């Protein structure tokens, strides 16, 4: 049985969603603007997008690129971040480079990479990979840096080699922080995907958004926003479940992922 407080906590985000949609409805009715459909009109347009075979294939192709970009980025970034966190030299080597790359919008590299590699899957996946890498590296770095020195000493005393300490002590100890980075990275993957599609305007969810905008199908624009928003919230909720399972031992921490492009 669920205590009433837990129930209220679970229901709160749903209520917030409904509240925001209601707010939208009221605002749209009040503004009476042709280019601002009501929430209900937008929701009604969703089935026609999802029913359109081509649009659906497009969206699924987008998601596949996103999954590959995210997966490869996580696989590369975690070891790099952990090594940076445990070795001053490695950190000093990579930090300035990362600081220079940090404020560059990854999706903005799209036109240049397109110039080199064409508009194919590789270009789009590469951009997503770049977008996801930085937060995962950064959080793995912070996590590994904060690992208690004495814990490593205990490991060394038990006969673990440096590499073994990395795998059996540093990695699990920094897991909560790493997963925070992955969570930010996941939302970022989605954002980079959408943005790069908005810039390249070839296919995918971002393209559907702007094509509809150009053709004046405003309810499709807003319906697509709902779909993309739901993907963001859904992916995040899914990841949060996985995270909670993996780091059950850790102190509960307050983190809602920070999403940015």
């Amino acid at each position, binding site marked *: 049985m669920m205590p009433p407080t837990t129930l209220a906590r679970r229901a709160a985000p749903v209520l*917030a*969603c409904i509240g925001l949609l209601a707010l939208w409805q009221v605002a749209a009715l009040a503004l009476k603007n042709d280019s601002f459909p009501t929430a209900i009109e937008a929701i009604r347009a969703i089935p026609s997008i999802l029913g359109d075979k081509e649009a659906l294939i497009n969206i699924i192709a987008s998601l596949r690129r996103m999954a590959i970009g995210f997966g490869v980025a996580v696989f590369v970034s975690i070891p790099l971040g952990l090594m940076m966190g445990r070795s001053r030299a490695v950190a000093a080597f990579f930090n300035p480079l990362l600081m220079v790359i940090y404020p560059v919008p990854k999706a*903005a590299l799209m036109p240049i990479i397109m110039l080199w590699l064409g508009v194919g899957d590789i270009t789009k996946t590469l951009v997503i990979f770049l977008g996801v890498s930085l937060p995962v590296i950064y959080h793995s770095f912070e996590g590994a840096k904060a690992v208690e020195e004495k814990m490593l000493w205990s490991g060394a005393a038990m006969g673990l080699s440096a590499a073994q300490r990395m795998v059996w002590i540093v990695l699990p100890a920094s897991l909560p922080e790493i997963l925070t980075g992955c969570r930010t990275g996941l939302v970022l993957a*989605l*954002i980079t995907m*959408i943005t790069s599609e908005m810039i390249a305007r070839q296919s995918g969810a971002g393209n559907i958004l702007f094509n509809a905008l150009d053709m004046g199908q405003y309810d499709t624009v807003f319906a697509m926003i709902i779909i993309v928003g739901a993907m963001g919230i859904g992916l995040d909720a899914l990841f949060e479940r996985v995270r909670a399972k993996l780091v059950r031992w850790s102190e509960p921490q307050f983190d809602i992922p920070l999403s940015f492009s």
Partner: protein
Amino acid sequence: MTSRLSPINVILGLAPIALLIAVWQGLVSFGVAPATLLPPPGYVFGRLLQQLVTATFQQEIAATLVRLFAGFAIAVVLGVSIGIAAAASPAINAAVRPIVRVLAPLPKVALYPALLLLLGFGHGSKITLVTADALFPILLSTYYGASTVEQKLIWSAMAAGTPRYEILFKVVLPAAMPSILTGCRIGLVISCIVVFLAEMITSTDGLGHVLVTAARTFQAVDMFVPLITISLLGLILNGLLGAVRSYLLRGFPEA
């Protein structure tokens, strides 16, 4: 990602950047990549310096900076006040928390078409997008900082006769400052990124627009220039914020 600047660290840190430029030069010199696709670094940086002194390019930078600062400033004001309010009042917290939970993971850039429809193609829609993206990290870190202020600091101030409403400004806000500034730092980088992307997607001026124009005419050199400029802007702004931070937090350990 701050580390103390020792000479060895500086050399070590510059090495990969130098290496990157060397590889870049090498690719062009050995003819692996044609100069039309990958212009040599000397040419790109020369072009950057040449552009930086022209009035038109300066106007593009100014347009980008205006949007960036306006959006960031609104995000700071909103984020800090909502964050503090949510930490101070359980009622506000109960309302804000679920809304933030829903809106924070939402890809804000997807809202951009809607903002264009509602606010038009001018400054308004871009500034709003910057604010929407920079708001949440600032809000969340403010909330986190304000809700973890040590109880005994507040008690000490109360015992010294500070009225309840003044506690917020005299104790909670300064005590949460380290966390707030961390949020601002993230928010600032995000603002740089978002303003550039918004200008790329649709705009008639700004650095993002410069990149798109160059891309349309396949001018590889002119595509690198705005990218390097935004990176430099990010570094400069980050440095300025770091200076503000170390002044404001001079009393705090590990500031």
